[in-house]
């Protein structure tokens, strides 16, 4: 259905960004806050009204072509938006959670002289993110995709006078560009195969197997960049250099989930490329495990949460990778609630401790900041799944789908049905994912216990204090959402609020036979609960309140090498530095110094000039103005001519 107001949803935050960016410096602080908050709230309200209207009937979709952005030959790119149940839900998450984080930021950034710049970037981010999810073609999506990358760059390096923070921003952008390279080529391939860049047009054109594989694979490369998956996840932990509300909004709740969203949006493409789906699930599973084990040994509270995000994003990719697009996106939504809550909680802790981020120097904070402690605990329950609230079901659904899905049973890497089978992948992913769930429970409870329990271990002159209401209110809202978000993922068949039911018909169905069941749901729930409690028990044994940081010492003593490797993030950054960064840089210097300066300029250009000069110098010898020599040469010449012409003949 064509509507005429969708453009307002991304436009309002864009206007807010323009106002704050251009005028924010000169107008009173309260104006900046008001504008920044009101535009996001208005976007939320419009989105909400639209969502209610649209979701009444299954299959309804609001569509708007704002204008034709550019058209060249057969390429026709509209700035077109569409609101369906998936993008609608994400609009609500982006503007809703986004509004809470804007509100929280008022307390967080108030004392920083760059507050106007901060809100301009934050508004711009919301606008770009809304364009990303609303965009009705790959190019519009790519604009949002790059726009959020720009805002991420600007906000990670928000305190740019610190070289490390500036570096983190740059690293994030460049690593993301590696993914964007894949995204771009993916767009080109799809356009050349289908003649369309809009989703409806592409969906209508069946693709040859190889084209689908390449396009899906290259787009997935983009997703590994934006959503911090192996091997491109390395930017996300460093991105924690940005202000903490930014980490909550961009690097937990919204931007980093863009890759998952993209795959869900392009489900019609991915089901045509089952091999790539398998790769998506496998990468997701490995990343989930990888992020979780590194998370066990981090002492920076934000780094723990960052690796946790990497790991949880991995789960989402398992979900979409096994063809259970609803499960991946459901976890996206519940994760937005509890991870935003965790990040904002960590921000409140850092704020209350005047910038301290090391959990070894925290402890006992529940006494000083009860609201933060309780909300953090609720969100931790949600992510670890020790009690069946939102995160428990959304994660378990993914793992159960991985185990029981038929997608892999008949999967072959080639279109040839007799090719090698990948049936073992599902159970493998289930086992590793379940182990990872236990590790998740361990590192999150470690983080919680070290931060809020035991004795306060920080310097005596720092007096921890609770944050103002403007910051604790969003914490409570998000904590409540983490609990009640469970209604989206309750495993009740035909439950009206169920996300699976709600998104029925939105996603394409992965190829494969009838779903088989290795394990019935009740068994997987049982395993999930046991694993979560085992993780909790491990954390409690090592880090129970009376022990303070003795747990880390014990850990270190038990496996010194492993622990040191984990503390150092498995040396991935160092390996990349040697293998990639330095090689590229040396190559660049070599090209310039040798090819450009020495061969082309030195040898060919200046060399030919010197050759001309040398010939000229030689010629000058004969033109020395000495008449006797001219006469002598002339005489010799005449003599030679005479000899040749007369004597020889």
């Amino acid at each position, binding site marked *: 259905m064509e509507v005429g107001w969708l453009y307002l949803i991304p436009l309002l935050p864009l206007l807010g960004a323009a106002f704050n960016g251009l005028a924010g410096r000169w107008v009173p602080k309260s104006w900046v806050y008001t504008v920044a908050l009101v535009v996001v709230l208005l976007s939320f309200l419009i989105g909400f009204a639209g969502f209610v209207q649209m979701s009444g009937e299954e299959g309804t979709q609001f569509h708007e072509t704002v204008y*034709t*952005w*550019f*058209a*060249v*030959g*057969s*390429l026709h790119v509209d700035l077109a938006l569409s609101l369906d149940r998936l993008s609608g839900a994400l609009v609500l998450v982006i503007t809703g959670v986004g509004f809470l984080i804007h509100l929280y930021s008022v307390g967080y950034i108030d004392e920083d002289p760059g507050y106007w710049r901060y809100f301009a970037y934050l508004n711009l981010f919301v606008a770009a993110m809304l364009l990303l999810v609303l965009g009705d073609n790959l*190019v519009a999506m*790519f*604009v949002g995709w*790059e*726009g959020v990358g*720009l805002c991420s*760059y600007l906000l990670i*390096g928000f305190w*740019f*006078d*610190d*070289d490390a923070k*500036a*570096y983190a921003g*740059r690293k994030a*952008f*460049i690593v993301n*560009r*590696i993914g*964007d*390279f894949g995204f*771009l*080529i993916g*767009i*080109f*391939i799809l*356009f*050349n195969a289908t003649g369309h860049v809009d989703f409806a047009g592409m969906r209508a054109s069946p693709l040859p197997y190889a084209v689908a594989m390449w396009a899906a694979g290259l787009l997935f490369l983009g997703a590994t960049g934006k959503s911090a998956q192996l091997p491109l996840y390395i930017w996300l932990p460093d991105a924690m250099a940005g202000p903490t509300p930014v980490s909550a909004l961009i690097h937990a709740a919204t931007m980093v989930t863009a890759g998952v969203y993209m795959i869900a949006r392009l489900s019609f493409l991915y089901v045509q490329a089952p091999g790539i789906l398998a790769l998506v699930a496998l990468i997701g599973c490995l990343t989930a495990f990888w992020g979780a084990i590194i998370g066990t040994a981090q002492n920076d509270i934000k780094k723990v949460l960052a690796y946790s995000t990497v790991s949880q994003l991995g789960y989402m990719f398992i979900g979409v990778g096994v063809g259970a697009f609803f499960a991946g996106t459901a976890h996206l939504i519940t994760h937005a609630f509890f991870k935003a809550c965790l990040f904002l909680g960590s921000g409140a802790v850092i704020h209350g401790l005047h910038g301290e981020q090391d959990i070894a120097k925290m402890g006992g904070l529940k006494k000083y900041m009860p609201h933060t402690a309780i909300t953090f605990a609720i969100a931790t329950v949600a992510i670890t799944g020790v009690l069946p609230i939102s995160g428990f079901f959304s994660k378990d659904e993914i793992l159960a789908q991985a185990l029981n899905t038929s997608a892999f049973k008949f999967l072959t890497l080639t279109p040839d049905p007799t090719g090698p089978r990948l049936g073992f992948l599902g159970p493998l992913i289930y086992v590793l994912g379940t182990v990872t769930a236990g590790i998740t429970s361990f590192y999150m409870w470690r983080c919680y216990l070290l931060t809020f329990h035991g004795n306060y271990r920080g310097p005596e002159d720092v007096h921890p204090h609770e944050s103002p209401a403007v910051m604790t209110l969003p914490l409570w809202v998000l904590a409540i959402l983490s609990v009640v978000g469970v209604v989206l993922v309750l495993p009740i068949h035909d439950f009206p609020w169920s996300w699976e039911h709600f998104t029925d018909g939105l996603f394409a169905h992965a190829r494969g036979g009838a779903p088989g069941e290795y394990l019935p749901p009740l068994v997987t729930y049982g395993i999930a609960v046991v694993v979560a409690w085992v993780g909790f028990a491990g954390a409690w044994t090592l880090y129970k309140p009376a022990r303070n940081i003795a747990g880390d010492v014990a850990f270190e003593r038990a496996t010194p090498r492993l622990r040191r490797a984990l503390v150092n993030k498995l040396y991935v950054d160092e390996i990349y530095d040697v293998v990639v960064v330095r090689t*590229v*840089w040396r*190559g*660049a*210097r070599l*090209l*310039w*110094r040798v*090819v*450009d300066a020495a061969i*082309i*300029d030195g040898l*060919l*250009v200046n060399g030919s*000039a010197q050759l001309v000069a040398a010939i000229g110098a030689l010629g000058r010898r004969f033109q020395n103005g000495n008449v006797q020599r001219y006469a002598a040469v002339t005489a010799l010449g005449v003599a030679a001519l005479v000899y040749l012409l007369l004597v020889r003949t």
Partner: protein
Amino acid sequence: MDHPTTSSLLTWMIFAPTIGVLLILIVIGLRSLGTLSKQQADEASRIIALVASTAVLGMAAALWKAFDPSNPDVQFVQHGSWIPAYNVEYFVGADGISITLIILTALISFIATIASMPWWPGNAHLDEHHFSQRAVPGYMAMLLILQTGMTGVFCALDMFLFYVFWEVMLLPMYFLIGIWGGSRKEYAAIKFFLYTLAGSVLMLLAIIGLYYNGPTVTGVDGQIHHSFNLLRMAEWGRQGGYQSAPLVVGLSFARVAWVGLFIGFAVKIPMFPFHTWLPDAHVEAPTPISVILAGVLLKMGIYGILRVNFALLPQATRWASTAMAVFGAINIVYAAFVCLAQKDLKRMIAYSSVSHMGFCLLGMASFTQQGIDGAVLNLWTHGLISPMLFLIVGVIYDRAHHRNIEGFGGLAQQVPEYAGLLGLAFFASLGLPGLCGFISEFTVLLGALPVFLTLTVISATSVIITASYYLWAIQRMMLGKLNPAYRTLADVNWRERFTLYPLGVLIIVFGFYPAAIINLIEGSLRNLLAGLA
């Protein structure tokens, strides 16, 4: 005579600057008579230059408004006889291939003129050694001659006229770099001159060959004449006329002529391996001259290839297309890598121009509508972005007197407005969607992919390398702790604002509304493409 005169607008655009030159000559005369003081003569020449370039800009706006994009043929024609003995004509006109470049030339010349003025407050750092204070009447006269030459090249539809304008442009450029340039100005100026001249010689030989092997007409005197009329020659070429020309040392004439012309144009693009004059010329040239060099002069190479090689020798163009694409990809990736190794900011930006011009080659070599439209669009977008980049360099060089990227640090705290403008220009150049550079690169790559899959994928890696060198430069110059040497650095002044903001706004406008340009160019390019099929 086909294509009769319909308008004198282009002639006015070409020669209005020449009128300015004559006026400046009068000023110089009065100065030597002692009637005018040095200061009066300087101011008078500045005003003349500004009025002339403003007038041309106004005419360009009128041209844009009156241009009919639905007509792919040449418009605004002025046509007359010039040298009847050789059937040389004065024949100017504009079509979709040239219209954007004529407008761009007017715009960039205007910006460069403003950038040459030391007028507005905040220019106390410009001492008598600054280019804007030295031999002002001569400088302004050269700038105007240059403008005549550049506009003439894009308007000329007679090949002889084209060649004359092509060479006219060379001399003022030589002097502008050689007199008002930096410390190695003589080396750079001579290098520029010889490089271009070497290319021109090959071009001239090819032109003569095309003339004698080209179409003939019977003149009023009953004698048979050859013709330099580019449109007639294009018609001849489309029908395969040059294919039947006698062999040149055993090789196809069309191919030899194609290569000769191509090398002449490739020097200007500049295409690897003929690019090494560019970094030197840019580094030594004063800021406004770099602006013109990057904004307009480089476009002539691509324009020439489209107007002459593509139109006149379509068969040879098809034969050479893969080679063009290969060189395009080399330009894109090789120059991007070289950028990564640069320490001089201006040299880095010069190499980045080499890299971005490679997209034109790749796109046009693909013979797809997207590829060729993207190539011409890229002339426009690069024509807006690269002048802004060089102006950005000029701002910091005027103040710090060096351009060593590592010699700054933390400037964003001290000069936030400058930092914002620099960020805009850098992000535009690295192809951020929403800014105009993205559209042309996207279109080129999209159009080239089905034809040159591997080369396109290789070229697309430049999105990573380009982001790397720009962001690294931003970090080293702008972020981190403020270098104490620049604690009193002044932010951009009004002269710089007058040049930077218009370009910045246009970069954003055409990022969101590129259709304004695509509409102008598409019709003529579709015809050009049809001739190649």
